[in-house]
């Protein structure tokens, strides 16, 4: 039960932080000369990390450019989907006093950890995407 509450808190904080981050970028659009980058890897090594470009991809999605968002970083669409679903799911669980989100989270985690057929393609896709990020020089 304790770990379930922890999952809810972490997902809620991540969702709020995600919306705050996107809101900050939308509000400061065009104010800053260079876009703000907090990525440790990119700042330290000048090589983009696997998730570099997700913010730009989300901003493109918001402006309606789905193709541009996919080309920027396909993970942006995954994050957008998660950011739309998770807050609604948390709220519905809180209202109905159920723990469907936590159980689904733990179930998915267990499947990814234990099934080779799932985690090997996922790791390969993440690496391919990272390679593409480096080639694109995000």
């Amino acid at each position, binding site marked *: 039960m304790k770990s379930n509450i922890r*999952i809810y808190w972490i997902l809620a904080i991540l969702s709020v932080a995600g919306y705050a981050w996107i809101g900050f970028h939308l509000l400061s659009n065009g104010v800053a000369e260079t876009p703000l980058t907090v*990525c440790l*890897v990119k700042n330290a090594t000048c090589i983009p990390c696997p*998730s570099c470009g*997700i913010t730009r991809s989300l901003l493109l999605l918001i402006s309606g450019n789905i193709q541009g968002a996919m080309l920027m970083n396909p993970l942006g669409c995954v994050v957008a989907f998660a950011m739309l679903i998770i807050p609604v799911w948390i709220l519905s669980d809180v209202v109905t006093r159920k723990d469907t989100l936590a159980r689904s989270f733990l179930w*998915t*985690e267990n499947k990814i950890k234990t099934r080779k057929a799932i985690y090997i393609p996922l790791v390969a896709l993440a690496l391919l995407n990272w390679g593409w990020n480096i080639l694109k020089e995000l």
Partner: protein
Amino acid sequence: MDAQRVDMFIMTKAKYFEGHQIPVIRDRLLAMDDSHFLQIQTLNLKDPTTILIVSLVAGSFAVDRFMVGDTGLGIAKLLTCGGLGIWAIVDWFIIMGRAREVNAEQFFNSVALRPT
């Protein structure tokens, strides 16, 4: 189980667990049958120091979270560039505790499966 054996186990494996868990672990081991000692001895415990080094080097890629078995949080951390760099830094301080917690969970799960 023989007290001397248990104390030897505790001495060699103490760094894998939180200090407050050691007395409980000792009691559990003392109540356990001798034949299960080998299985307990060969548990795949995560070394908190190794995890800390991994966290310092590759924390932004969430390798530390994947290593301790928090796959869901690992994916979240990876997708957010190490939580915008903040989560990666926070994890430098909490990942050792998390590794010890995971080790204790693994130990107690393994003990719970065996008849005492």
